[in-house]
């Protein structure tokens, strides 16, 4: 995955070697902060240039980008 920007403003540009055609929505999940496994993620609902829908997220706790099916 290729991204642009840093920190809270980072967003994906290329996913699975496909250009991101549109960012449909951005949301955040912050949860389980009181446990050993806190969750802090920034999600992107993306439309790739292939027409495929994909959700990518940035794991703000551990670092790194991940994708999942939309």
């Amino acid at each position, binding site marked *: 995955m290729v991204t642009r920007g840093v920190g809270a403003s980072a967003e994906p540009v290329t996913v699975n070697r496909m250009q991101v055609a549109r960012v449909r929505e*951005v*949301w*955040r999940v*912050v*949860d389980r*902060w009181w*446990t050993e496994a*806190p969750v802090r993620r920034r999600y992107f609902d993306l439309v790739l240039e292939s027409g495929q829908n994909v959700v990518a997220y940035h794991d703000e706790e551990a670092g790194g980008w991940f994708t999942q099916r939309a």
Partner: protein
Amino acid sequence: MAGYAELHCHSAYSFLDGASRPEELVLAAAEHGYPALALTDHDGIYGSLEFAYAAKAFGVRPITGAEVTLADGSHVTLLVETPRGYANLCRLLTAAHAGRRLDPGLDQALLEERNDGLVCLSGCARSGLALRNPNAAARLARALGPERFLVELQRPLTRGDARRNAALRELAGTLGVHTVATGNAHAHAESRVRLQDALVAIRHRTSLEGCEPERRGNDECALLAPAEVAERWRDDPASVAAAGELAERLTFDLTQELGYRYPDFSDGPDPADVQLARVTRAAFDERYRDARPGLRRRAEERLREELALIAELGLSGFFLLHWEVLELARDVAAEVRGAGSPRHLLPPGRGRGSSVGSIVCYLTGLSHVDPVAADLKLGRFLNRELVSVPDIDLDFPRDIRERLIVAVCEKYGREHSALVASFATYRARGAIRDVGKALGLPPAELERLARLSDGWNARRVAEELELLPEAERRRRSPRWRAFAELCGEIAGLPRHLSQHPGGMIISTRPLTELVPIEPAAMEGRQLCQWDKDSCSDAGFLKIDLLGLGMLSAVEECVEQIALLRDERIDLSRIPLDDPAVYAEIQDADTVGLFQIESRAQMQSLLRTRPENLDDLTVQVALVRPGPIQGKAVHPYVDRRQKLREDPGFMPPYDHPLLAEPLEETLGTIIFQEQVLDVAVALAGFSVGEAEGLRRAMSRKRSEAAIEAYRDRFLEGAAGRGVPRETAELVFGKINGFASFGFPKSHAAAFALLAYQSAWLRHRYPAEFLCALLNAQPMGFYPPASLVRDAQRRGVEVRPPDVRVSEAKCRLEGEAVRVGLGYVRGLGEEPAKALAAERERRGPFTGIRDLAQRAPVDRPALEALVAGGACDSFGWPRRQLLWRLGLAPRSVSAGGGGEERQLALPLDPQTDVPELPEQTSWERMLADYRVTGLSVGVHPLTLLRPSLPEGVTRSDELGGLAHGARVAVAGMVIARQRPATANGVVFMLLEDEEGQVNLVVPPPVYERCRAAVRGEPLVLARGRFERYERNRNVVVESLESLSALARAAAGEVEVSESMPRAHHFGGRR
């Protein structure tokens, strides 16, 4: 283009939802550069006035509003544009709460009808009306028009924002209205959002894990900087701009005149001044008919002066209103006390506070102290520079007060009167329980912590945890780390609406247009949504109708004396100089007496030895934070002692100018009005200026204002030739005193009640104890200690007994019979019903008869057996319990089918099992556990044989030399950690012979904190100190006696059954 303004923001007055105080929100808004900020708490404007004042102070324009829940559960955001809109908002909020306590819901039709001056936004992202019911939103849009109805868009960065906002934009287009962006802030900063999560869990009475759907799911509900808002809405700048433009329109200022007026008698046939003169003249002729000519002349003069001043200040109506309330109280008192009651000689209530210095108050029945005879000054109460209406507090016995509150409401109308609210705020114990439960921490561990937390500052729970065992384990756990952090944050936040002890607001204009009114927990009462500070800021006249436990006790005592002895006591005519009464006071034999019973008072009494009511007036005012912080206590006590030893002793004054104002208190500042007198005498302040200084030092301490007064004080003193260091010293004393002291007039009123309680206890100890037990909770000592003290002075106290006890305690000859109401688990009404059944159908003949006839449930019957109330049936308690289990029930106690079963006329045929007799320990512990007191053997009598060698009894301490090593053991009845004592803890132990004072220095406290704070039975070793007549044990080590007691009691749990010590103080 107008800058963005946040139009949807919740403070902690959205109870258990908003996580920040109004001031924190305002400060954040100011830092972000917001031109305006709206406060839109759920269904109320509880914090709006506080918010408005804070916002103006920080240069942010406050907008008043509320997020209102409609009857179908959906939300709309209402914002005030005009004064008419504010009145409508108050009316709507009142309607939303009417008949729906804790579950407000506004009929939308009412909003469609009454919305002038209001702007309505279509509601939040979760429960907004536009989402839940677009047709209903369309109706509102039609009713308000496009200028005053906007579709609200929010972007909390949750999945679905885009789809929702697209639908809302479409709706706005269809309705022909604008959209507006709002933030729905619930915290002033991102760092506070975790607390918001926890509050959601607390509100739903579950853990954080258990409320995932209800939580917001991220940390985006903080107040954002305008740049962040713009970034979030970069695809819709018009909605952001709309927020700023709308804010510019919303110029209503809540801090300006609300149009409040109290009923001022201006519509009567004569002017209020004439009416007041007539009322006071009539009373004057009666009160001073037999007065000495000198006193009468001075009183005449004083009345003339006061009436002129009151007329000049336009306050005649104010006094007439109080007089009218007192007249109402007279009627209520006559009704409550009943015809021919021995209490009829007593006034219905008493004034306290500075009003006691006024002859007009004396003549209108507001006070019972003759200010001319008692030489009380009017200064603070009334002066030409008065900036607000004076304070008048009225004390009533509790039963009269309960009825009076309802009577006032009925007289002035439910639209025109309401009680003042107060907000229950988080302290350490509540924070530990609620936050701990939200975080899913072990309940038993939380309960242990909560029990240890008496006197903790919730803000410092983290530090306290570090000092407890297993700190390292907790430190490693993220849940415990979060616990420590969140307890600190939740400290002081309002948890729910509660009721002020007695403040009432009465208004000529409907109060429901000035502040929303909602039902109180107690049937028939209603509260306004503001606390006393907000009411004061709004300029409302608050009449304090306070319930005073000792007044109830004194009244009941008079009644008991009449019943038992047929003696009618008129407390206004008892001798005020009874040497035997003063002898007890001087010996600090004051357990149960009003105001002079605390440990600190006792220690002081031994040295000051009051000889008359004037001395007692000083004494009542002496042991208060003001004189303590103003460093007046020790100098006063020392000088008083010197004066006793040498009548020619001249007390030193910081400056000769202070000789007059401080003469009666031997050069120290003890009374509140002396702050004024000193400022006038030393620095040439006017009375009004001096009152301004006192106010600056009071509730909302303003450092800037105090500093300004300091400069003025030093300058004024210099002008009178006072050396700068002297002026600095005196100002320091005044500042230390602040307003944490009594006015002399207030102290005089309390001193009289203190003396009356002492006189009654001395003459009628059994009646006094009986009345005191019936007036609980009150005072410094738990009932268990009051009983022990009375026993030591020869009063026989009998245990509760179903065959003879009433619900309340009563006298049996000269003995006090404890009432059934003391049996925990029974309740007052069932206790009354049980006594009524006995009255109706004769005494209970045995446990079986009781079980069949008593209209109480089985657990209550078991509690009666366990607490010894069935001992007189002649069987041991265990046998009784067993027989109770076999007894059929035929009485409906409102329970299920089991309770309605008809009794079988058969005796149980089961063999009586062998049940071991309870030991003395077990019986005594059951007494304490079930009734909170024990009239039998003292725990220390039982424990004494097991104590180590050399433990001294309290009555043997007198024989020890100063500095002797000593060990004492006892039950902890009070512990105190005053803010003014530099970390020293004072404990009061009780053994079988009396009480012992312990002084626990900070290092010992740090070493033995668990035992100091939580143990009911302790053994203290240390050094015996004797200063004149004061005796203390300065503790060097302190250990729990729980294990020893447990062993002595035959492995029965002891600690849990013992009464909990009263805890006082704890500010750090």
